[in-house]
């Protein structure tokens, strides 16, 4: 908040790399997997193939987001709050693998609960990512 804002240098209005179809797709996939996993958890089902495939698709979308960000960075664009932004980005890419590993270790309803929880956290982190990219205005 009180951090000295860097001079609003040559920031192309083209906008944020984390605010596009990829981000929307990631949020939608994450929420779909979350609902699927929640139903599984409520029905006392262990994580099924659909959940693991969903996590894999989600991870691919998030890696795509990271690549798009890297391209934007090499193009000279900068996030508004670098500290938080890269923190969120690293966290984001780690989320689906974390869920997959723990869900495999826990072949009970709680494995599905883990997938559900992680997939609920993911959209929040994506939104925070977008917020920390564009703070240059205020």
């Amino acid at each position, binding site marked *: *908040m*009180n951090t000295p804002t860097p001079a609003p240098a040559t920031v192309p209005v083209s906008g944020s790399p984390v605010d596009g179809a990829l981000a929307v797709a990631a949020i939608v996939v994450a929420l779909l997997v979350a609902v699927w996993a929640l139903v599984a958890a409520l029905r*006392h089902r262990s994580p099924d193939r659909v959940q693991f495939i969903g996590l894999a698709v989600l991870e691919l979308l998030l890696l795509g987001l990271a690549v798009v960000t890297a391209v934007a960075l090499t193009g000279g664009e900068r996030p508004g709050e*670098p500290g938080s932004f890269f*923190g969120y980005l690293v966290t984001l890419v780690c989320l689906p693998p974390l*869920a997959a590993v*723990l869900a495999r270790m*826990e072949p009970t309803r709680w494995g599905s*609960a883990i997938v559900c929880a992680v997939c609920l956290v993911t959209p929040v982190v994506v939104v925070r990512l977008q917020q920390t990219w564009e703070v240059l205005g205020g």
Partner: protein
Amino acid sequence: MAESHTARPRTNAGPGRLLIAVYLIFAIAASSRAAVQIATKFDEAPLAYLLSALAAVVYIVAAVGLARAGHAGRRVALACCALELAGVVGVGAFSLARPDLFPDETVWSGFGSGYGYIPLVLPILGLAWLLHTRRAAHRVSS
């Protein structure tokens, strides 16, 4: 409850694994954030960034303690949850009373409001889970 037939309640199975998952998420979030902040602009808010780093270490150790599930692991997890609760309440109160000391946010500022108050709820859940599994363990052994 559902897994009443599986004897020996352990801190690293069932709901405990979900708790470990959330702890790991916070460990990653807090440590990557602290690493970037300390590396790029440590001078701006040294206290806040050191607290972020401390929070990160506590989350990591708590996750390991819960995952190890032994006597020592339980004790380590207990100490971490207590430290965490003290940290989030203390830093939360301090960040409201003396905002000048915290020019940049930490995981624990404003009682964890930047992270959906999960930092405040997490140690309480952790302590409850440790208590629950210990009671269950007593019932099994006696």
